[in-house]
């Protein structure tokens, strides 16, 4: 089959797996959309060094299984390849993300200003703790549909994991350029990040369960909890 006249670039552009092509001086020659998002969380140098470290001993392509984690991106393998001295490519394989299979109960969802729930939960947190909190929020976030009681429980548990932490920073924002598909429709994502110098993880299972009930994706790390909430209107 002659494929020389076919332009493959758009297929690569829209591939969900990040793909980057570097030159020999670590300059980026090409990157697809997914790699562009990845660069929001990791430096160019780090990825170039990674490509060099896992490059095949001579011209060709080599796939290595490994576990990589950059913020909410998790990969289980990479393929590094080069066919000349000037260009080297790296492709990342997305690890499957846990997704709730619970069907959405729309009757529980009520149009809500998420900032209200967050502030009320901060007030609750302050009745029990004296830690200082730094809140960075987008007051212009539109109201969207939430299970108010369920989501409040999730917020309480999440904040509670930071009850003894110092320098707690809470960020609430709309994730630009990322979407989640719910019932076949593209929904924007609101991201709530809480980070501190450390946190309790003994209630992580409860947080997971509550997040799943609220159709919220979670990322539980040593010092950080991230909740990605679908903006359903």
């Amino acid at each position: 089959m002659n494929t020389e006249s076919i332009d493959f670039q758009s297929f690569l552009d829209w591939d969900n797996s990040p793909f980057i092509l570097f030159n020999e001086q670590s300059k980026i020659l090409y990157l697809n959309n997914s790699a562009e998002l990845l660069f929001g969380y990791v430096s160019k140098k780090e990825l170039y060094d990674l490509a060099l470290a896992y490059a095949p001993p001579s011209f060709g392509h080599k796939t290595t299984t490994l576990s990589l984690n950059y913020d909410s991106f998790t990969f289980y393998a990479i393929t590094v390849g080069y066919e000349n001295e000037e260009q080297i490519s790296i492709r990342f394989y997305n690890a499957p993300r846990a997704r709730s299979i619970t069907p959405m109960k729309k009757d529980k969802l009520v149009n809500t200003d998420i900032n209200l729930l967050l502030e009320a939960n901060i007030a609750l947190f302050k009745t029990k703790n004296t830690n200082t909190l730094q809140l960075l929020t987008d007051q212009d976030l539109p109201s969207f549909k939430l299970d108010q009681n369920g989501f409040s429980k999730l917020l309480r548990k999440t904040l509670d994991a930071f009850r003894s932490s110092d320098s707690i920073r809470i960020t609430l924002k709309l994730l630009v350029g990322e979407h989640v598909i719910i019932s076949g429709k593209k929904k924007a994502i609101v991201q709530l990040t809480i980070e501190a110098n450390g946190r309790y993880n003994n209630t992580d299972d409860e947080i997971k369960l509550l997040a799943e009930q609220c159709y919220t994706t979670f990322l539980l790390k040593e010092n950080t909890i991230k909740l990605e909430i679908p903006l359903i209107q």
Partner: protein
Amino acid sequence: MEQFFTTSEQIQNIIKGFNLTKTLFVSSIIIGKPNIGKKSLARYLFPEAPLVSGKNQEEVERLLQEVDELIITDFEKLSNQESLDLDNKRIIATANYIGNQQTIDNLFAFIYTLPSLKERPEDTKYLRDIFIREAKATLMITDNELSTKDIPVDLSDNSKTLKRTIYTHLIKHSMTRKDIQEAIYSYILDHLNGNNEYKEHLTLYEKPLIEAGLKKYGSQLQLSQVLGINRNTLRKKIHEHRID
């Protein structure tokens, strides 16, 4: 309209939390010792909401079907907590204690703990002044000379004992000679029976007389002169009534 006074930062944060979620359908619970203002706080924040006690389980179940805003007091008294559905309603519950932590955790989005009066000296002072004004009005005490600064502050059962001490103190200190005679009359009428009752009831008069006298005059010698009785007689009576 119900008023709620507090200088406690903790309670101000509770009020802030409630005010923020006033229009939302979330369930909240206020937990704290008896008689510290949980119900008053709920009433102050939600003056229009129907109120039901957890002692009346059937009524709670009925109202949960009918209304979407409800105050449930004495929540710890409900025996069917696990089976309640509080989602998509505005529920404000109050409880003296948490029965099952897991159940409360599952049912309520906001779990507030109200500090007791011992932890709120400023609030106690304010409440005490209110109770004194109220007690004076109720007992129709117009005597402005009557000192209230000696009223002890008893917080053993929070506002209940705080209030009760004020009333009993004011009654005791505003009694006239006639009131006292009438009180003794009623007491004796209820208790008089037996064969040594003269001596038995003399205590009612003699014990407070000697105790007050000793406090006022300090020495037995001086008191015997004031009372006009023999020093030995006084000593004998002190011993008889076991006065220290």
